[in-house]
């Protein structure tokens, strides 16, 4: 080819590209919902074992629970689902559930009290990570057969070790672990007494609107309608969730119309996608909060005045407005907004004068070296760098110790950090979930190994909070209970070694014809069955 010919060809290609610059739109079928999401955290679909975000999304659409949230009215709190009503015994320790007629598992078996009994006992006996949500009511492998009993085909009673706030118990039953499994199917697939655990890792046996028909780890989850679902037939007959790691790739697919929903768009891609016709962006407040915490084994960081100085020298709004734009909002209390008793007050802002004054009053006016332990995720690193900058202005020498999620978590659990920058998501939709982890520490000794408590991980005694946290879970007057959490959080903001900074906003990119998309707010997971397009 001569030079001229080559030039001509290049020009031709360029012209062709210019002429075809308008994107060609594809479209997904009207009864099918195609979603791009990061789903590499799914380990199992067994509701009594699953404890990951993407797993909870599947579970909510496959398994029904005794009580559950209405996706169209999340603020209303839990309401009846498999249980049509419930009663509390006089001593307040036994709750008796009446099971509603007409619910049927995808296998065709009707949902009975025996299935409920089986599932709740199973949650305790399997003793997988989320089992504490149920066992915190005094249920053990030894007593659960006695405490959870189906008294007839449609009645099941649950007895607890003492009286708890009813809302606390029922909120816990809305968690993934409360999913009711088809006993007959599970036991037909039992291996070595595992109550079907191995089989239910990759298969589902629920009475919810959908059932999983195919799962390729790190690749896709396919759900079809449960033909026996008792409720209205959902508009979306098939749900396809594809694992797409990259935000830019998700955005391209969304703009092209190859997918209906993109769930992991970066702030830049959200801004870009908003400009495109046929695409809309939906914000939803979620339950995760972002915080820094100071290890109380470090003498300087256990000085209350130093902690105060650090809290005043954080650029909360600056971060929220810049690199976190739209995906985290400033929030300074341990309960996420929309939880019962969530505190909206934000007492701290960036005020270097106040910070310097507090530091001057402390035992460490020169500040000292601080090591921030942070995992190599972009937004965490950005936050840590901002802290490094503003704390540096106080005269503190700040070093970032960057590691993988596993490495930093190991250090955190071993109480080896100075400052840890992390995010925390509620385990179940009751205020006790975060109160119990942030504002309680039954035994601060190293040997206690109470790694489940964030207070313990920071070697913080939390003595002033322990009793209040315990009292709140047995308070049956909801208003009084709410006030207890409000008071606790206000005190926590001032005294604790935790600097809570942000609450998560999930931004979903949707094709503009998608309606009723609900990712679950702060309390639950996504609901596909109400979506229309």
């Amino acid at each position, binding site marked *: 080819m001569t030079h001229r010919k080559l030039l001509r060809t290049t020009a031709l290609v360029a012209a062709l590209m210019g002429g075809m610059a308008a994107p060609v739109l594809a479209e997904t079928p009207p009864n099918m919902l*195609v979603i791009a999401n990061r789903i590499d955290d799914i380990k199992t679909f067994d509701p009594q074992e699953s404890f990951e975000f993407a797993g909870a999304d599947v579970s909510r659409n496959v398994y029904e629970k005794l009580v559950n949230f209405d996706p169209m009215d999340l603020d209303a709190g839990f309401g009846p689902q498999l249980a049509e009503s419930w009663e509390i015994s006089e001593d307040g320790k036994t709750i008796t559930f009446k099971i509603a007629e007409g619910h049927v598992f995808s296998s065709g078996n009707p949902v009975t009290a025996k299935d409920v009994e089986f599932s709740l006992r199973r949650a305790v006996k399997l003793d997988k990570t989320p089992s504490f949500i149920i066992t915190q009511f005094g249920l053990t492998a030894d007593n659960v057969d006695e405490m959870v009993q189906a008294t007839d085909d449609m009645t099941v009673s649950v007895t607890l070790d003492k009286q708890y706030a009813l809302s606390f118990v029922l909120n816990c039953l809305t968690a993934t672990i409360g999913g009711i499994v088809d006993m007959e199917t599970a036991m037909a697939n039992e291996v070595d007494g595992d109550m079907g655990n191995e089989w239910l890792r990759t298969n589902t046996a629920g009475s919810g609107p959908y059932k999983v028909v195919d799962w390729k780890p790190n690749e*896709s989850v396919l759900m079809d309608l449960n033909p026996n679902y008792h409720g209205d037939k959902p508009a979306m007959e098939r749900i396809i969730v594809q694992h797409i790691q990259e935000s830019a*790739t998700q955005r*391209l697919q969304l703009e092209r119309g190859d997918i209906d929903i993109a769930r992991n768009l970066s702030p830049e891609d959200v801004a870009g996608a908003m400009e495109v016709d046929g695409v809309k962006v939906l914000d939803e407040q979620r339950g995760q909060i972002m915080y820094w915490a100071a290890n109380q084994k470090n003498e300087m960081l256990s000085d209350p005045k130093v902690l105060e100085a650090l809290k005043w020298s954080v650029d909360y709004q600056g971060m929220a407005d810049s690199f976190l734009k739209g995906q985290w909002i400033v929030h300074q209390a341990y309960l996420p907004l929309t939880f019962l008793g969530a505190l909206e007050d934000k007492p701290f802002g960036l005020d270097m004068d106040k910070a310097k004054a507090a530091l001057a009053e402390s035992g460490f006016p020169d500040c000292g070296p601080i090591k921030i332990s942070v995992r190599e995720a972009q937004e965490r690193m950005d936050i840590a760098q901002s802290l490094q900058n503003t704390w540096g202005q106080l005269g503190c020498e700040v070093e970032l110790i960057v590691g993988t999620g596993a490495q930093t*978590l190991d250090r955190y659990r071993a109480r080896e950090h100075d400052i840890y920058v992390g995010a925390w998501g509620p385990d179940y939709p009751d205020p006790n979930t975060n109160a119990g982890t942030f504002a309680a520490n039954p035994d601060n000794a190293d040997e206690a*190994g109470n790694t489940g408590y964030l207070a313990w991980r920071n070697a913080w005694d939390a003595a002033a909070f322990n009793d209040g946290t315990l009292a709140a879970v047995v308070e049956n007057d909801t208003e009084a209970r709410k006030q207890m959490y409000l008071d606790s959080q206000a005190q926590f903001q001032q005294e604790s070694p935790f600097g809570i900074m942000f609450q998560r906003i999930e931004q979903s990119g949707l094709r503009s014809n998608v309606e009723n998309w609900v990712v679950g707010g702060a309390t639950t997971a996504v609901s596909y069955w109400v979506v229309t397009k």
Partner: protein
Amino acid sequence: MTEVTQHSEDRRGPVLPPWLKKLAATLLTVAVTLLGLLFVTFMIGRVMPIDPVLAVIGERATQAQYDAAYLELGLDKSLLEQFFIYVRDVLSGDFGKSIRTGQQVTTDIARVFPATLELATLGTIIGIVLGVPLGVMAAVYRGSWIDQTARFVGLIGYSMPIFWLGLVGLLIFYGILDWVEGPGRLGVFYQGLVTERTGLLLVDSAIDGDWTVFKNAFGHIILPAALLGYYSLAYISRMTRSFMLEQLNSEYVTTARVKGLSERKVIWRHAFRNIRIQLITVIALAYANLLEGSVLTEIIFAWPGLGSYITTSLLANDMNSVLGGTVVIGTIFVGLNIFSDLLYRFFDPRAK
């Protein structure tokens, strides 16, 4: 003296034919290499400052659940003991369970490997088909525009980050021009339509005669394969050029020209013939690199292959998967080495 010889011959047992000896020696080398690889990877995995138990149970588990998982993983045993147990299991085909997917590592790898194999093979084919002629031409027309172009193409291949080129490629050919399909191996509507035989979608759909699926699968693979092909093209053409230059400068080429042979015959019959052997090694290397090193491409194109499997496993501290994947990659490297060695012998009479 005789007796001693006799004695030593007795000890040697039956006399093996040379080819069998050679084969036995090769297999022994392979086994030792793989065992060494296994040992090093296993030890690195175990002494890394991260806790494998946490990967299993998550950060909310109680101490009792932690202890139970610790015992279940066999971490109470000594490192050496753990290693021997692991090797014993591997020999019986059991690579353990993946913590991340809850499935047998062998099942996982059987699922992800064909995806990588298909992508890397197509990528390498593209690299060979374009890279070898380009390299030859660049050497023949040294200093000409062809040579400059080849060098420029190579330079871009070396200096552009692959994820950036991948995204730009997606934007242009998928987003704007609509010439290729999007991320993933197959459109969602085509999944499960062909019988899974080899796991290679192009092959399986061709066997089934389902050309719609074939077309869709091809639309998905062509862009990432072209990208990988481009990267191996850069390497292959550069190596081809330098091999060819060496040959073209040698005396036998001058002699052939003086004898009046046509330029085509001189280049392809004489010079190229002599670089085939070197090229085989280069291509084997390029192929092996694509098989293990296409992680970024796999992530950009949501390609569910071995590279991204090993990487995400490593980040999640899922050591069984990492070890399983490493053994596969190691075996491929060793296998390709042996293969190129065999071809070497085949083409080079001196090696025989």
